[in-house]
């Protein structure tokens, strides 16, 4: 089974995206992805309530294909954010959380800690667009939360430094690396598996921002063993997600 752990749905003018569930499921069919873990762009960048509700509608249309991540447009909304997470888990059936950090407004701050504690209570893994340093701060604060470092630091705010991501993931048992990125450096996956084990690597594509074909190839067309590939391509994220 292949599960894409990093997919976006909805609209973003900045990212020049406007896609619905039907489009994404069509892409998943072409790629051979059984399930896609989606976050709504409105929820992530503008209004968590509106966006998460939009995603819930898409989940109802494709219950066997779309797994919902709750998203928060900010981690500074206190009880309102915690209530939204309860709603996303219990009313919408979402199974994880997506949060986004920028150097200008980093999530590595005390306000995020209550959010992390809530995810532990709900059994949500967190897909965090965050740097290795930020992930280390968060993991040190709440070591029992399950944190997936989106892009494994192969993103501009982390200077593409996936070797640094590996060092961070080595320090914390619950810190995982997610693979979506424009970066296709030779040896990336082999190094991750050698240093961390296949259990800590999670496949994602970031569609519809990035082309999914090269991203599947950079995982599959390597010298990784088939049983390790199964974990990376789906087994690991299914193990982490909140149970249905």
């Amino acid at each position: 089974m292949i599960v894409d752990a990093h997919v976006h749905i909805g609209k973003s003018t900045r990212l020049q995206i406007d896609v619905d569930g039907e489009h994404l499921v069509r892409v998943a069919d072409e790629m051979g992805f059984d399930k896609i873990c989606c976050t709504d762009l409105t929820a992530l960048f503008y209004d968590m309530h509106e966006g998460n509700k939009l995603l819930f509608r898409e989940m109802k249309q494709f219950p066997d294909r779309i797994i919902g991540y709750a998203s928060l447009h900010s981690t500074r909304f206190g009880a309102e954010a915690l209530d939204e997470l309860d709603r996303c888990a219990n009313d919408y059936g979402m199974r994880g959380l997506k949060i986004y950090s920028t150097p200008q407004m980093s999530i590595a701050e005390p306000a995020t800690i209550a959010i992390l504690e809530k995810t532990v209570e709900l059994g949500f893994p967190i897909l965090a667009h965050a740097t290795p340093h930020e992930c280390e701060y968060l993991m040190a604060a709440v070591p029992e939360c399950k944190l997936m470092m989106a892009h494994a630091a192969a993103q501009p705010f982390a200077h593409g430094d996936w070797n640094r991501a590996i060092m961070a993931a080595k320090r914390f048992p619950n810190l995982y690396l997610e693979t979506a990125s424009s970066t296709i450096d030779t040896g990336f996956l082999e190094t991750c598996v050698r240093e961390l084990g296949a259990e800590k690597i999670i496949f994602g594509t970031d569609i519809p921002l990035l082309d999914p074909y090269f991203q599947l190839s950079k995982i599959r067309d390597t010298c990784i063993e088939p049983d390790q590939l199964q974990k990376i391509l789906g087994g690991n994220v299914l193990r982490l997600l909140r149970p249905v």
Partner: protein
Amino acid sequence: MVVDVNAFIGKWPYWPIPSSSEAAVSKFSQWGIDQACICSTRSLFVSWEDGNCESETLSRQHQAELVPFACLGTLETSHRAAGRKHDLRTYRERGFRGIRLYPQHHSYHLLFESFVDEICEQAQVLHLPVLLSLRAIMNWGVPSLDLCDMLAIVERHPRVPWILSGVNYLQEIRSVQLLMRRYPSVNLETSCVMGYEAIQKVVNECGHEQILFGSAAPLQHGRANLEKILHARVSDLAREAILSGNAQRLLGLGNE
């Protein structure tokens, strides 16, 4: 047939890659790249001329698989070569099929060094392609070139056979597309074009004749880079042109 207009040989100082010459050639083949235009990473990090000698030697040993590009840098600031001038005819006579410039690795400004203009003027006369990279690979940790500088040098020398490389972000692709529509001599190389349906969009906007497959292998995963072209929603004619036809025409491959 797959021709890669942007490959490398040599060592990579940041993390381990297949760095022996034989390992690189073997990787190209394993990834489905039949012919690779190479430049030595020694040219980026140690000495551009020493790197050119490596590319020249290896290409002689693998004539069917490798096509050498010469990487040129400053002469003015060199202790040994001060006062000399670049003469592109000598590189062509040595078998180099194109030129590469990496100002971000060689500490010069593209717009304010006279040797750059001299190279461009000669390249235009000799119809020698000039590959200019915004970034050697799509990793934010490696040095990059300012997009405006790239656009400005092309506007200054629009009839040079340009290969614009390392282009990734939407605004970068849109800017290069503008140049491609304006100047038939401007070509886009695909090694860092990673966006969703990006190849298809460029073909729809500009046609397929100015797009060249490149991988930046073995620094980047060559097969992954090829997959996005093989699965792009473009005609078979366009795919063949991107993967080999355009490069063969531009570089005169097969006309020896």
